[in-house]
């Protein structure tokens, strides 16, 4: 939906053929070089300094582009098994010309036309959350984005959590459950798994990383070196977190802002 640093990394590593999105960038900082190099002909013709995964050797990135609400509508239609989702966006813009999957649909009440977007059904949706139980029942607070819709729309769902909790913790507050274990295929317990991004209540965005990325992403060699150092040469995510160092991570911890409790009542 909103490709940022992690997409830039995956695309630099050659993991993607096509991007379906509504906004791309390094939020609050700048652009994403690996993605731009695979979209802009002037830069994508330049071979990268590195071997097989250098940008210059990779095919142009296919692009299928919507607005935010369009992407939300696509996931919603995917989750609800609807053939389309109607929204009032796109009139008098060039987006329907750029993307022929954005189509008009007539209201059956004779009051005009709206635009439609088609359902999106990801092969896999990966959601990061504060906590889940072993059955995959997942709770999130703070921004929810479009994670529920993207999970329900997907063929498979992987939940990455800061903390594995007892089922009783989940069942004590069922209104916080965003994704039921019913649709979850795997729960991965990986503290700091959202780094360099943040998790509400757990840690802040590592803004130094975002700022540093701006220089790295402009230079294909630097990007490939970063991938070697921080991805390929490390034995999994735990090693990545260890390499970041305890001090850096501790500096990302927010102060406390407790929610308060409510009472569901015991009815027996």
């Amino acid at each position, binding site marked *: 939906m909103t490709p940022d640093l992690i997409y830039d990394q995956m695309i630099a590593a050659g993991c993607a053929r096509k991007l379906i999105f509504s906004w791309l960038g390094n939020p609050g900082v700048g652009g994403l070089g690996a993605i731009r190099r695979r979209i802009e002909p002037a830069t994508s013709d330049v071979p990268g300094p590195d071997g097989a995964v250098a940008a210059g050797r990779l095919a142009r990135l296919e692009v299928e582009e919507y607005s935010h609400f369009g992407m939300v509508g696509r996931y919603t239609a995917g989750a609800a098994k*609807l053939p389309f989702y109607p929204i009032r966006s796109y009139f008098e813009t060039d987006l329907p010309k750029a993307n022929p999957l954005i189509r008009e649909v007539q209201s059956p009440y004779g009051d005009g036309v709206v635009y439609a977007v088609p359902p999106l059904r990801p092969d896999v949706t990966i959601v990061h959350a504060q906590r889940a139980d072993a059955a995959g029942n997942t709770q999130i607070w703070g921004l929810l984005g479009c994670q*529920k819709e993207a999970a*329900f729309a997907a063929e498979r769902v992987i939940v990455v959590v800061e903390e594995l909790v007892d089922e009783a913790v989940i069942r004590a507050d069922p209104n916080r459950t965003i994704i039921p274990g019913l649709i979850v295929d795997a729960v991965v317990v990986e503290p700091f798994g959202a780094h360099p991004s943040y998790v509400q209540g757990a840690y802040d965005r590592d803004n130094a990383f975002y700022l540093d990325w701006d220089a790295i992403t402009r230079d294909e060699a630097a990007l490939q070196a970063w991938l070697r150092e921080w991805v390929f040469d490390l034995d999994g995510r735990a090693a990545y977190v260890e390499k970041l160092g305890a001090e850096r991570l501790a500096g990302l911890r927010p102060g406390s802002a407790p929610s308060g409790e409510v009472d569901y009542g015991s009815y*027996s």
Partner: protein
Amino acid sequence: MSASAFSKNEMMIVAAARELAGQRVCFVGVGLPNIAVNLAKRTVAPDLELVYEAGVFGARPARLPLSIGDPTIVTGATAVTSMYELFSFYLQGGLIDVGFLGAAQIDRFGNINTTVIGEYDSPKTRLPGSGGACEIAINARQVFVIMRQSARSFVDRIDFRTSAGNLGGAEQSERIRREQGWLGRGPSVVVTDLAIWHFDDDGEMRVDSLHPGVTIDDVRATVGWEPRAAPVLATTPVPSAEELRLIREELDPGGAYTS
């Protein structure tokens, strides 16, 4: 009533609950399905995930819910969602294995009426309406029905088709389900106070098991068409002492459903 004696309603609820053995996710309809599913959760299907249309997934009601919007279905549940999300993502999204419905009228193909007796615009009896039934009927993988059986309820022609069953037969039903992309295969069992019915390959229901003390003539007398029976009719096993205890002590101590 002694533990060995039991009412027709108790037999019906027990038989319906047993049909849920091995099922995973059940959408619980209002009325009789509510007690049958809650009994199943306590007996043959402890891992059954109860879904209530008011917006609950994975309910663990500490008592029999008084309605399908009872607060006891929320406390201790896995998840609460808006009705929008429940109907969109869980039901229409195809996550429901069994939809458990009641009915006022049913025909031989399992089509259901819960709207009106008589003409729609000038009804003899105004019934509750669809609620979520018409969408459960086409989106749940299978539909189970529980209802009392009588000449007024098992009819040759239902007065209003609220919820689609096997339509005019299996051939039509399968074609339309395929064409329309319905996720459900339609009705698979009807449990009444007299018998257990399943569906033949041509989509018509067939008596498979008579409850203790019920004869095939009792069934004929309460069906508005010439009913089909399995070549060998089973007798439904009587309720166990534990099943009766659960109904009488935990689920329906006032006997609202079962007396």
